[in-house]
């Protein structure tokens, strides 16, 4: 058995004193402060005890305990309690006090730091009225505490205040030969200054104020979502309601269309991000977010809230133009065909929309004329675009493929890189190619409209502050929005040189259409307008209506920044998003589902398996609830196990 100690190290006082008191047989070796005696610890830890078995003890309290036990003195529970207090409450304060007194020369402030622990010690001693901490005899607790406090209490220059009980108790210890001996060995008669070289090698203690702000290992209950402690009454009330079962619930009124906001009720306008029309929807679309929105709406109706759940297919844009070309049909025909496909698949999945519409209606164009186009938040500018000379037109977005300028992914599309997710403009792509004829396009200038996001930034931030703090926003939605704002808003181009889109109602931009991501959220409005003439009672009524947007996380910036800005720019008292629920990606085995690349399980395949839609709904919801990113694992054992 060997004890390693270093001079000037206050922790060694304890073990040396314990050795003397117990008279245990042990070799003692003096080493330098930096010596790493304990093989598995990165930082030097002294004192250390090498046990006969070969194990090391690096805790001074544990060493003392061991020495006492070997000497026939077990630690009582009260002893344990004192040792735990010493390690968790006294030592941190002591370390700070020593740092101040020895290195900073702030001897006068030591008293403040040690006030708490010394008061506690004094109170406990005076209450017990025994000479020693645990009774009539010296225990390991006494030795440890005496040794810990020795450097401080024996230095008369530190005005620590008058604590009678502590003084009496301490004097007992100070008078003991063993403690004096140990003190001599460690401090060499130099008092506090004997510890200078040791203290210099220790990391600076965190002051007691900032102690609680940094720990990453704090209890999970204090995380952002927070856990609410439920009272006894609440638990009992819940149990009672549960036992009454559904019969006691208010009846769900039959729905009367059109559903309009009602006075005195909670009016919820629920939208699910409009699925893009160009292919059969896959399970990823369904869980994020049509299914989530559906479950929420059903819940809302059971709670007797006034819910309007709208959705529809997003039909404009270059992807549809691409698909039309592929299938040899006109864009309108493609949209008609696929809208029907979407509709039937969602019906099979029992998604209970109040209305499932489409963006390609006259209402869309009508609503645009009344929009931010007239209010001075639009800026004109010339833009450089890629033009394919052989196809004779400007290429945008999905007509171009090239290498991402940020992450070098070779199949980046002209609006967003699939790999790193950053939004890009087609002209930024390296080695661009026209998707149709594979020629390299040239850069030409063209006039376009921009939404002046920077001008709207303050208003947006005001709204977001209110909305994110009072509404239900998923953590990922808040995070993504914050990082967009942090990167700084720039004007966004909202027009494109295309034929298939909402025409821009501005004489100078006759040949252009609105960029699909600008016009799609307006789709929510036009779809509602197709459902009821009184659409403005939902969409221009922020005081009576709460807007819930459900979407997959890649749509967040458009719903939390771009769309609210367009609405704020129109200055027409639009209802803005109160609650934003963003689901994570559903992965197909380990890759992302993709309609445009044909990867994953699609809605019609789900039907063809013969497994009922309720099972699919359940399975998808359970997987989705697992948090960040989840994989669809195929095979029968998957869902059987869940059921």
């Amino acid at each position, binding site marked *: 058995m060997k004890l390693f100690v270093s001079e000037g190290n206050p922790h060694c006082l304890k073990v040396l004193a314990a050795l003397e008191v117990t008279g245990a047989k042990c070799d003692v070796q003096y080493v330098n402060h930096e010596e790493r005696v304990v093989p*598995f610890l*990165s*930082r030097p830890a002294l004192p250390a005890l090498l046990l006969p*078995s070969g194990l090391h003890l690096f805790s001074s309290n544990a*060493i003392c305990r061991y020495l006492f036990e070997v000497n026939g003195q077990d630690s009582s529970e*009260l002893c344990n309690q004192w040792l735990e207090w010493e390690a*968790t409450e006294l030592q941190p304060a002591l370390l700070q006090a020593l740092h101040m007194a020895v290195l900073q020369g702030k001897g006068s402030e030591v008293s403040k730091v040690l006030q708490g622990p010394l008061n506690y010690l004094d109170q406990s001693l005076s209450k017990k009225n025994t000479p020693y901490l645990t009774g009539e005899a010296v225990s390991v607790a006494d030795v440890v505490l005496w040794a810990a406090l020795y450097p401080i209490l024996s230095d008369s220059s530190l005005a620590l205040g008058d604590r009678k009980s502590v003084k009496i108790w301490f004097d007992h210890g100070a008078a003991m030969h063993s403690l004096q001996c140990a003190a001599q060995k460690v401090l060499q008669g130099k008092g506090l200054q004997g510890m200078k070289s040791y203290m210099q090698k220790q990391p600076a203690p965190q002051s007691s104020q900032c102690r609680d702000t940094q720990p990453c290992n704090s209890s999970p209950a204090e995380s952002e979502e927070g856990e609410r402690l439920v009272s006894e009454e609440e638990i009992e009330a819940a149990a009672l309601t549960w036992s009454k079962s559904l019969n006691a619930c208010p009846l769900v009124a039959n729905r009367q269309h059109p559903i309009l906001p009602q006075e005195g009720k909670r009016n919820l306008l629920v939208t699910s991000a409009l699925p893009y029309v160009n292919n059969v929807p896959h399970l990823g679309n369904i869980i994020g977010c049509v299914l989530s929105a559906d479950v929420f709406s059903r819940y809302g109706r059971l709670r007797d809230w006034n819910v309007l759940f709208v959705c529809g297919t997003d039909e404009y844009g270059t992807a549809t133009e691409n698909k039309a070309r592929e299938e040899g049909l006109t864009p309108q025909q493609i949209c008609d065909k696929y809208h029907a496909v979407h509709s039937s698949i969602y019906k099979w999945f029992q998604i209970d929309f109040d209305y499932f519409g489409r963006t390609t209606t006259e209402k869309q164009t009508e609503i645009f004329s009344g929009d931010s186009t007239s209010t001075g938040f639009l800026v004109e500018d010339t833009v450089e675009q890629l033009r394919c000379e052989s196809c004779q037109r400007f290429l945008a977005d999905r007509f171009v493929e090239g290498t991402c300028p940020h992450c070098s992914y070779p199949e980046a599309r002209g609006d967003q890189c699939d790999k790193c997710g950053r939004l890009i403009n087609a002209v930024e792509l390296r080695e661009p190619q026209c998707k149709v004829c594979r020629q390299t396009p040239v850069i030409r200038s063209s006039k376009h409209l921009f939404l002046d996001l920077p001008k709207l930034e303050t208003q947006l931030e005001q709204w977001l502050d209110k909305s994110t703090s009072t509404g239900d926003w998923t953590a990922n939605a808040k995070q993504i929005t914050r990082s967009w704002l942090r990167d700084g808003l720039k004007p966004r181009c909202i027009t494109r040189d295309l034929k298939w889109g909402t025409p821009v109602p501005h004489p100078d931009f006759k040949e252009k259409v609105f960029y699909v991501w600008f016009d799609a959220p307006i789709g929510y409005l036009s779809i509602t307008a197709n459902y009821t003439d009184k659409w403005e009672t939902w969409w221009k009524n922020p005081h009576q209506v709460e807007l819930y947007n459900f979407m997959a996380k890649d749509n967040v910036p458009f719903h939390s920044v771009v769309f609210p800005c367009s609405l704020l720019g129109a200055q027409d008292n639009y209802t803005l998003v109160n609650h934003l629920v963003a689901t994570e990606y559903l992965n197909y085995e380990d890759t992302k589902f993709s309609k445009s690349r044909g990867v994953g399980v699609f809605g019609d395949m789900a039907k063809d398996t013969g497994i009922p839609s309720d099972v699919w709904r359940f399975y998808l919801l359970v997987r989705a609830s697992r948090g960040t990113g989840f994989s669809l694992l195929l095979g029968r054992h998957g869902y059987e196990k869940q059921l």
Partner: protein
Amino acid sequence: MALRELSSLEKFLGLKKPNKYSTQGDKKVPVLQSNNDPALVGLVTIACHLVKEAKRPELLGDSAESRAVVQQWLEHRVTKLDGCTKEDVKTVLKDFNLYLQDKVYLAGNQFTLADIFMYYGIHSLIVELAIQEKEQYMNVTRWFDHIQHYPGIRHHLPPVAVLRNRIYTGRHH
């Protein structure tokens, strides 16, 4: 958090009547009031008391050496592990990993209270690790997975997946 650990410990020990705890101070140190005896303060102190109450002294170590080792790790848990900062995490895990290289349990070959409380304390760190990091701290992961599957231990904490391919968890071996 500490109170939940104590309640889980009670369940593991099979103590029939759960105790009522309170807390003191801003660090919320647990306190056990009892009718006849003076109050006990401190997570480790109370835990050791419960073990004695349940007549499972072997959980505290069966020799003077192992008892010292157990107390050492219990102290380590409430001093270094709780409230360790982000910068310290790597060191904590690295040292722990090295320590566990040649041991099945913290006290060697015997399952003790040290394993239980280090498991409770380190859970929130392990949960945050990616699969690759878990593989890096191979011994910690092995020990962790062992303890979390030990009958009656896990209680209030969610299980942490240690294997890359979840399809086999529960079905494998």
